[in-house]
């Protein structure tokens, strides 16, 4: 019997529920609007399942604690918003170098600085990927509905475990409080990936062909050694160009070579057999873009919506294939046109336009239509 549970959840609670489904054991956080209800909900639910929810003194401590928790071979996450993520980037760089699986719920609010804390925006899409020092790729997912928030949270944990990487789940203030129907699964019904564990060796050895090395756990007598300096296959600090090249190229390739398991793009064709116009969008702006696409189709413009649910790494080949027939492409987002620059960089031969609409609330679909028509 399949025991599917359907509930009516907000985007934030969907994230928390999915984290419980995959077996979250540890949450560390610091209160910040609009992410706090993930924290509060887990503080209610997680201890009942034998897990721990701890409030730390700041986001710097929270991410450090999540790293520590992950090395005990337990699933761990945190959630924050722009100002908090800015403090966490130090720890994310440590997690990338030490290949620590963890998930960060990043619920964007209006910025920069303290902006309008309770209102929405997509100003931090580049920071989620490029905010930490070291310039290596990490997967970034972006849901646009509570159901997607639930599904992508499961995926975020799976990818973090399978590739031993921090993963960012980039939501926003609109989705945080938007309620919708969510089909929830039992943990036995979904695929849950776990990290490959190291069990024998004294040191943490792997061949250079092994893109994702097995991970030792604290307290299993392995005398594990976690090194944040440039290290070789024995995990020993070696400050040479040769070792640095080998390490950085492996950390890069383990994400890029596995892009197929990360990518989540959905093309909505609305009955068209070809797409003359394509709106590309993500997060809560994708909801506005989907309404705008339907209305444009009603007015006789063959318009499709490409919803980007995995923002990074960018799957260039798939992106080119999906947009091949379009005569014009519009990137719709609630910021000054940040992801537009990324898309334009990939689709160099296409006519890519920027629909950048700054709105403290969800973007008005009619404003999108106006911009599309003005650019035709």
């Amino acid at each position, binding site marked *: 019997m399949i025991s599917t549970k359907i509930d009516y959840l907000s985007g934030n609670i969907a994230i928390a529920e999915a984290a419980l489904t995959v077996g979250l*054991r*540890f949450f*560390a956080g610091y209160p910040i609007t609009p992410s706090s209800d993930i924290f509060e909900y887990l503080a209610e639910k997680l*201890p009942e399942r*034998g897990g*721990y929810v*701890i409030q*730390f*003194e*700041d986001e*710097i*401590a*929270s991410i*450090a*604690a*999540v*790293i*520590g*928790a992950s*090395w*005990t071979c*337990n699933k*761990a996450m945190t959630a924050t918003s722009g100002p908090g993520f800015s403090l966490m980037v*130090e*720890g994310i*760089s*440590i997690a990338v170098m030490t290949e620590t699986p963890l998930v960060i719920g990043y619920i964007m609010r209006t910025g920069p600085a303290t902006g309008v804390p309770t209102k929405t925006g997509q100003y931090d899409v580049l920071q989620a990927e490029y905010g930490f020092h070291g310039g290596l790729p990490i997967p970034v997912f972006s849901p646009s509905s509570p159901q997607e928030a639930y599904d992508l949270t499961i995926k975020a944990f799976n990818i973090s475990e399978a590739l031993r990487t921090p993963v960012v789940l980039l939501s926003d203030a609109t989705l945080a409080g938007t309620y919708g129907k969510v089909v929830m699964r039992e943990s036995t019904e979904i695929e849950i990936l776990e990290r490959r564990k190291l069990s024998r060796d004294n040191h943490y050895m792997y061949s250079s062909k092994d893109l994702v090395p097995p991970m030792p756990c*604290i*307290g*299993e*007598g*392995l*005398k*594990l*050694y*976690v*090194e*944040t*300096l440039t290290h070789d296959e024995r995990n*020993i600090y070696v400050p040479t160009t040769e070792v640095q090249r080998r390490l950085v190229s492996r950390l890069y390739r383990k994400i890029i070579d596995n892009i197929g398991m990360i990518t989540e793009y959905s093309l909505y064709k609305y009955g068209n057999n070809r797409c003359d116009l394509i709106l590309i969008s993500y997060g809560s702006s994708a909801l506005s873009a989907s309404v705008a696409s339907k209305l444009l189709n009603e007015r006789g413009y063959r318009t499709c919506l490409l919803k980007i649910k995995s923002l990074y790494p960018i799957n260039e080949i798939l992106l080119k294939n999906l947009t091949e027939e379009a005569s014009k492409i519009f990137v719709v987002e609630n910021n000054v046109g940040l992801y537009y620059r990324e898309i334009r960089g990939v689709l160099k031969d296409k006519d890519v336009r920027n629909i950048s609409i700054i709105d403290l609330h969800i973007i008005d679909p009619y404003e999108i239509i106006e911009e599309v028509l003005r650019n035709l």
Partner: protein
Amino acid sequence: MSIETYEETHPIDRYVRVDKLPTLWCPGCGNGIVMHSLLRAIDKKISLGKLHEDQLVFVGGIGCASRIAMYMNFDSIRTAHGRAIPLATAIKILRPEMKVIVVGGDGDLAGIGGNHLLHAMRRNTDLLVVLVNNFIYGMTGGQQSPMTPQGIYTTTTPRGNPEKPLNIMKLAYALGVSFAARGSVTHPYFLDEIFSRALDKRGFSLVEVLSICPEVFGRHIGFRRATELFIEFKKRIILKRKPSIEESDYDWDRGFVIGIYIDREDKESLSDTYKNSS
């Protein structure tokens, strides 16, 4: 290529990652004394069956003293500058059977990591925190630290440190930790005793070890040789087994009172807190 093997062995070699030797520490550095003393105390606990070597986790941040954690042949984790304590806290919560030890310097634990130190003390987190206080940022070349004595020359306070140093014994006293002691590398047997007591405690155990940095502390204040600094420093150490907290403020001219400032059993620790709430 010939591979050199270590012919000579040392009684504590089994607790040291000998493949990482020699250490990066300068000749005359106090860190070796701290590490050896800590290992003597650990060895005693292991031989008495009070501790198992698989039970130990070392966490270190950045700085010369943090490297002590990385030379230890137990589970050891390095993290960002100042962030060892929150990382160690998570390990202790999820693996309460582990003995989690944080090692760092005054810059790492009291400077950039000061906020974490303060809150770990407030929670009475079950950690042994070894703060090696050499009064200086050593690895970066001798800059002022929050624990530099007033008036002392550093490269960022060339007219003498105008500020008062942080007295972490008083901080520990105010926050109600289980154990806080100050030792010195000039008195290694007393340091052994402190570590031995600290390893047995539940709750937060803070061991501040006054140490010497001959290169960028000693030389900068006129001691050309490590031995000169050591001898001068030793003259300034006042050993009192149970000093009062009022005696804990230090000054280069008035001296440094070492001893066990706090040792109490009545405090609820973080492990108790979370055991009771879940």
